[in-house]
């Protein structure tokens, strides 16, 4: 298995760019909140988010200052295959998109297959493919039955 050793984070420049981006996003979110509260009709619902938004902006500014002065060395995405991570999350989201039209089991089968492929590092042969798909189907069917029939969850 080829191990990537390239550090994906921001170490190169000596600055912790990731932290800066996250903190800036938090500040942005705080500002959006401060704008959003102007649309509320009841002052009772304004107070809390306003306070929290200011607190968040304040903390994030401090985070930026701190990371500027003392950039952290151990942040970053670390080693690992990006395609596997993306495949896992993407298939789960696709499953949600398909679920209302395609039904629950077909949709989650996509997510299940995505997870199987993403998590398999040893490579595939005919036997493992059959074994894993079969156990996957069994697990899904089992849980589906538990939720749908024993617990009465109206799965689409």
């Amino acid at each position, binding site marked *: 298995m080829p191990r990537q050793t390239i550090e994906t984070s921001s170490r190169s420049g000596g600055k912790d760019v*990731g932290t800066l981006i996250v903190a800036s996003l938090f500040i942005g979110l*705080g500002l959006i909140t401060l704008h959003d509260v102007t649309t509320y009709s*009841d002052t009772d619902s304004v107070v809390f988010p306003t306070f929290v938004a200011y607190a968040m902006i304040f903390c994030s500014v401090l985070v930026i200052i701190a990371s500027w002065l003392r950039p*952290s060395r151990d942040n970053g995405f*670390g080693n690992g295959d990006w395609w596997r991570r993306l495949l896992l999350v993407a298939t789960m989201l696709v499953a949600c998109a398909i679920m209302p039209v395609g039904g629950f089991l077909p949709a989650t089968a996509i997510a299940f297959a995505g997870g199987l492929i*993403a998590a398999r590092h040893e490579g595939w042969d005919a036997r493992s493919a059959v074994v894993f798909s079969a156990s996957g189907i069994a697990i899904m069917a089992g849980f589906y039955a538990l939720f749908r029939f*024993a617990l009465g969850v109206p799965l689409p």
Partner: protein
Amino acid sequence: MGFEHLANALTLTNLALALFGVVAGTIIGSIPGLSATMAVAVLVPITFAMPPASALILLGAIYTGAIYGGAYSAILLNTPGTPSAIGTTFDGYPMAKRGDGDLAVAIACYASVFGGMIGALALLLLAPPLSSVALAFGPVEYLWLSIFGLSLIASLSTGNLLKGLAGGAFGLLLSCVGVAEISADIRLTFGSSTMIGGIEVVGALIGLYCIPVLIDLVATPERHLKVEEGGRAVRFREGALLAWRSRFNLLRSSIIGTVIGILPGAGGSVAGLVAYSEAKRTAKPGQKFGEGEPDGIMATEAANNATVGGGFIPTLVLGIPGTPPDAVILGALLVQGVRTGPTLFDSGGSIVYTFIFGLFIATILMLPTGLLIGRYAYKTIVTIPKTILVPSVGFMTIIGTFAIRNSISDVIIMIVLGTVGWVLSRFGFAASPIVLGLILGPIAEQGFVQAWIIGEATGNLTGMFFGRPISLAIIAFTVLSLVYPVIQGRRAKKLLEMQAGSNAKTDD
């Protein structure tokens, strides 16, 4: 509360119901997304055909089992199966990762049984007087309690306090999304009608804790949990020894759990967090909370199971449900024709006491069943190949999140939030402060708004916020838990320096 009630509880039917309830509850609780509330709600129609005491025993057993079951997924998958088990992930998952998952499962079981017994004991002996605790807690007390809970952010984010606080604020904002709980404004939805329902807490928990684990699992070929060779048995004795050594921690956490369980506005998650915070504050030198410290698991698990007994106190005495599952049980009782309230302990005494003894039996049954199921769960998670573990857990997160309120948008929010949480954690913004903000935000906001309104109406705002004895006590504890680690750190440093000076041989 004589022996006849104990005898009533000990009928074969009731024993069978308790056993079934504990086993079913444990399994349901261990599945992320299936909460104690849901487990109890599903069974309510079945209990209509039963005599009230048996129905109560079944529901109580399921409830207590489900709260314990939440520990499995917290320890083995870093995903609290119920919100009560949030604190269990802090030390449980690190323990499991280093190969001590079996030990963690065993001590979680001991602690749960112990906590459950203390809670039930309080219910049996002290219910009417203790119920006044529920009434003594007003809006301000809830506000300070939530701030006490939030102070845990400081100790959870060692070395990264600012990032922890920013994350906590992010969580607080997330808790505002949707229709405001008490003011009916729609907030932070940006016109999207799917966001009106807000961010479902259990779904968010699953996302923030479980999705990052899955993303990390697929990225590299390494094993999920470190596994010891040679197939040890679950370490029952070692766990029992540890539990015995931590008996004071267990007792303190159980009492905290019982008292917080009595508070209708708090619940198991807050109880677990407060007990964890206290255990951490009183840690002995050398204990590393957050890195796999058994005392952390014991504190949370003892406290959350103690809330079961504690929560029944206001439910049965005042007719005010202490926790959400209690609300369901209260409804079931009403349909059965049992009126809760102050008179229940006198007029309906036999039902109540039979039920309380049933709760004891269920808690005791949890010891063998819990260790047995725990051993099986541990073995399964450790030996199952990663290839099948990842998609299975992924599937469970989807179906579990959907089941909470039958909503696909909750599932999407869960996945997106989990991915965001993974990115954030990669830059030092840990998930736990966000979760604390999300859970404690509504309690803090409601407490603040109500206290403000009442304070203004009575013309004494300062007195409202800072003039009530219980509030002051909570404030004192908050300050203490914020300042104590600093003092302790300094003292430990001094000690180290002294040792280094007097004993030059010490090189570590």
